[in-house]
């Protein structure tokens, strides 16, 4: 087993930095990396004797605290009982707007994605929404989305307790600045630099003075990731867990 972190482990660890202190995280059924980050935070809390971190995996029979149907997630968010959630986007723009609907003129979009799901609500309600999208290209990270499924910020007269805090991609990590309604580059993953990020990003952003290569997870984190978290992942995301194990065994292999 390699001692150095894999790409996916790095993503999990960096997402976990945005989950510190949460009590309840909800993740989508097919979101193993965000789920792993929440499991990591839960494992850390357990190791530190801190209050329990709850993790709801939507659509899962096993990892599901809900008993009031699919409306309960949204009610739960409205009640302030969900601290963090993850959203992606076919397009994400520099103001934090996300598009889950399609490319081209609505409604007869030339490319149609599934739809907005709960984003038009949860983006307003959950205090820490982490945007996660592996693909980091000008096609995804655009200047302006073709359709606003959910806006990054709202006018002051709109009641809104939630919104984006960060954007994590396969290449980099950005913080979201609500006042400015824009992103700040915090770090790039190994193999990238400030220039490659700029070339692959279709929107403008600021760059933090301390921006540098994304830090590798420390030894304690890697131990949790390869122990308790890996075990938990195997139960719910067996394919992803197996891939993670393979990557650890052959760290120089392909990322995807």
């Amino acid at each position, binding site marked *: 087993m390699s001692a150095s972190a894999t790409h996916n482990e790095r993503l999990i660890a960096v997402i976990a930095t945005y989950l510190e202190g949460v009590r309840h995280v909800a993740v989508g*059924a*097919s979101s193993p990396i965000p789920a792993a980050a929440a499991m990591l935070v839960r494992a850390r809390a357990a190791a530190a004797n801190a209050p329990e971190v709850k993790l709801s995996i939507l*659509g899962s*029979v096993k990892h599901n605290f*809900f*008993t*009031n*149907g*699919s*409306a*309960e997630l*949204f009610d739960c968010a*409205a009640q302030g009982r969900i601290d963090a959630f993850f959203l992606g986007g076919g397009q994400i723009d520099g103001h934090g707007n996300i598009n*889950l*609907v*399609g490319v081209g003129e*609505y*409604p*007869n*979009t*030339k*490319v*149609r*994605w*599934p*739809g*907005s*799901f*709960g*984003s*038009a*609500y*949860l*983006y*307003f*309600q959950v205090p820490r929404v982490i945007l996660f999208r592996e693909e980091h290209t000008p096609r995804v990270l655009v200047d302006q989305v073709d*359709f*606003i*499924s*959910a*806006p990054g910020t*709202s*006018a002051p*007269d*709109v*009641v*809104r307790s939630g919104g984006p805090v960060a954007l994590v991609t396969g290449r980099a990590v950005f913080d979201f600045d609500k006042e400015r309604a824009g992103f700040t580059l915090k770090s790039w993953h190994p193999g990238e630099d400030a220039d490659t990020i700029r070339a692959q990003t279709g929107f403008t952003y600021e760059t933090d003075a301390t921006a540098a290569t994304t830090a590798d997870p420390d030894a304690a984190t890697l131990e949790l990731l390869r122990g308790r978290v890996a075990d938990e992942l195997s139960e719910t995301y067996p394919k992803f867990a197996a891939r993670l194990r393979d990557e650890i065994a052959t760290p120089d292999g392909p990322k995807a």
Partner: protein
Amino acid sequence: MAGSGAVMMSVIVSLEALVSRIRSGDRLAVPVDYAGVSMAATPHIIAQGIDGLRLVCVPTGGMQVDMLIAAGLVTSVETSAISLGEAGGAPSFARAVKNGDITIMDATCPAIHAGLMAAQKGVPFLPMRGLIGTDVLANRKDWGMVDNPFAEGDRMVAIPAIHPDRALFHAGLADRHGNVWIGRRRELAAMAYASKETLVTVERIVDEDLLADEKTAAGVLPSLYVDAVAHAPGGAWPYACWGEYGTDVGALSRYGAAAGAGGDALTPWLSGAEWTNRAEGAAS
């Protein structure tokens, strides 16, 4: 609701008879993939040519919606998303949207829930947070705005009540009175409360009264809301039946490929042959 059927007619009917209660032009509510989709009913809807359907996905849809669109039976879809989940996008849906063959009423999950809840409560609308500034809202001319009467300058979205003509879903078991065990899938109850009629296919029909034991009663949709029940074992396939069997991602992918190709490739799905073959395979 109950009572329009023939005198003393049992609530337990054949799958064909159940499907025949759906009328052309119906506003038809169907559940999210994992909550119990009555897939077995789909080829029968197609065989009976029930068209002009205005689908309401609670709160998202998948293969069933895609099939009905492919069969040309759908006028509009109100939904928060349509996909085949792990098996990818919904090809017939994407094509129909691109070509303008159907009216798409893009929503967000809690707005669908709010519309059904308004119908459940007998009010014309429910107020809802979020949505302001989205193109979802901008494109829903049927939605409105309402002022919070308890705070100055607090304007919210008003989601109108959704009153489906029919709700159609699949569940694990029903009894002979028409009580249906839905467990913690309470969106199915929400659909039934809001709908004029509720049609349910089930894995098993049991003799005992599901309301008699408080343990099971807690997860029961009472017969008061159920108009027809048909026995259809494996009826959610290729989707999961909560607590009974899992999703057949392989079959979903095969469907996705067929729908992507279109034409003849889709025939065994739209005709119901895939279900018949499967049942024969299971019986042999």
